């Protein structure tokens, strides 16, 4: 039987009077890879931020393993150890080496053994092709390398789900591939993920389920084959048209 990781029920989000998300319900099962797509400004980032309590919500609920995710509450620090998040911009800590960036949460939050953390850091860096970069500073890395390091930083806390928000959007084209390859590899090994991306070919390859968000609502939802090859709604068709050149 499937195990539900995140359950979103009737989520409502607005900034001031500006309604961004209305009545969104999604549940994410263990091992599932969900790709969230939609036009710019439709609220994809906001949705991910609601999932780990970076934004207050005005209605509905988000739960992780049945625990409510409540903005600004103390319980968040515990919940967030089960949610990894990688943003679009490079958010490694510039004053720390790659290894220190990665080890911060396991050491200070999870109070794990230093030696064990060190070993896992090296193992994970090796896995994403960054062996030998442990002692470099973020500014000594390329954009693609930084994003791979950021992925490792979220992996090492052993989260139940990883949220990826357009992690290749700020990269030079030649670096996109190396990062997406890492994500694809994670997907194959059963990592539960919610991915926001504008890379349609990648979305098709990685997703178990595609969710198309527009106007603050889930307009269409289905397997990648259904969605990309036979979109049901006019809005999805229109949206996909804008990408046809890239295939």
């Amino acid at each position: 039987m499937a195990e539900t990781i995140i359950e979103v029920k009737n989520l409502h989000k607005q900034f001031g009077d500006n309604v961004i998300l209305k009545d969104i319900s999604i549940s994410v099962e263990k091992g599932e890879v969900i790709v969230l797509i939609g036009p710019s400004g439709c609220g994809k980032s906001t949705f991910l931020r609601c999932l780990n309590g970076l934004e207050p919500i005005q209605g509905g609920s988000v739960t992780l393993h049945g625990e409510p995710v409540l903005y600004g509450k103390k319980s968040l620090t515990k919940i967030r150890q089960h949610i990894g998040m990688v943003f679009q911009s490079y958010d490694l800590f510039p004053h720390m080496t790659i290894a220190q960036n990665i080890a911060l949460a396991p050491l200070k939050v999870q109070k794990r053994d230093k030696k064990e953390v060190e070993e896992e850091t090296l193992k994970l860096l090796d896995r994403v092709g960054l062996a030998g970069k442990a002692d470099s500073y973020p500014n000594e890395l390329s954009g693609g390398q930084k994003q791979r390091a950021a992925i490792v930083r979220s992996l090492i806390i052993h989260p139940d789900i990883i949220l990826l928000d357009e992690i290749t959007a700020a990269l030079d084209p030649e670096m996109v591939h190396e990062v997406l390859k890492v994500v694809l590899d994670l997907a194959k090994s059963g990592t539960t993920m919610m991915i926001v991306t504008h890379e349609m070919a990648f979305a098709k390859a990685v997703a178990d389920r595609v969710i198309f968000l527009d106007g603050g609502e889930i307009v269409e939802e289905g397997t990648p084959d259904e969605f990309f090859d036979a979109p049901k709604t006019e809005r999805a068709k229109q949206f996909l048209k804008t990408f046809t050149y890239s295939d």
Partner: protein
Amino acid sequence: MEGLKIVFEGNNFLRLLSGLWVTIRIALISIGFSLILGSLLGAAMRMKSKAVRAVCRAYLEIVRIMPQLVWLFIVFFGIVRTLGINLSGETSAIIVFTIWGTAEMGDLIRGGFESVPVHQYESSTSLGLTKFQAYIYVIFPQAIRLLIPNIINLSTRMIKTTALVSLIGVTEVLKVGKQIIDANRFEAPNAALWVYGTIFVMYFAVCFPLSMLSTAIEKKQKKLSA
């Protein structure tokens, strides 16, 4: 050359050095207080309450508008005369420099916190760090790194501005120099050049290493933030 001789005659050089020490002492104590109070002011300036921010802003503007000399006179002559409190020149000087330094330091520190991108805070808390941990491990180290050159520059400015305290009767290095020159007005008419030259070198010896340090740190930061 008798001017140079005067500088080293008797205990003149020692007197100059002890005058310099008064200067440094006033500056150091004021800088210390300013750092502590300035951090609080900097934090207060980032509070949500509009009233608190307005009060801080007003304090900052009032302190900055008036020349430090006016503040020295207000505190030393004004407070002593009107309230009858017995305040030494040195204490008055420390109070005034602390009031000033707190304002400048507070504004620097506020800017330092603000210059750390909000993303840094969000990615820290997303990793499960508490707000406090995020500040300790991520925000503060970056803010302080950005600020060190500015803090050093402000300190240098404060050291130099202490020269004003001779005007409220504190015998700091400049005053000692003047005393030495006056005492030798007839034997060595050109003593002024040598005495003030010596004081110049003394100030230089104190401030130059600081400004070198600040430049070095700035360079290192450029490298880190590239």
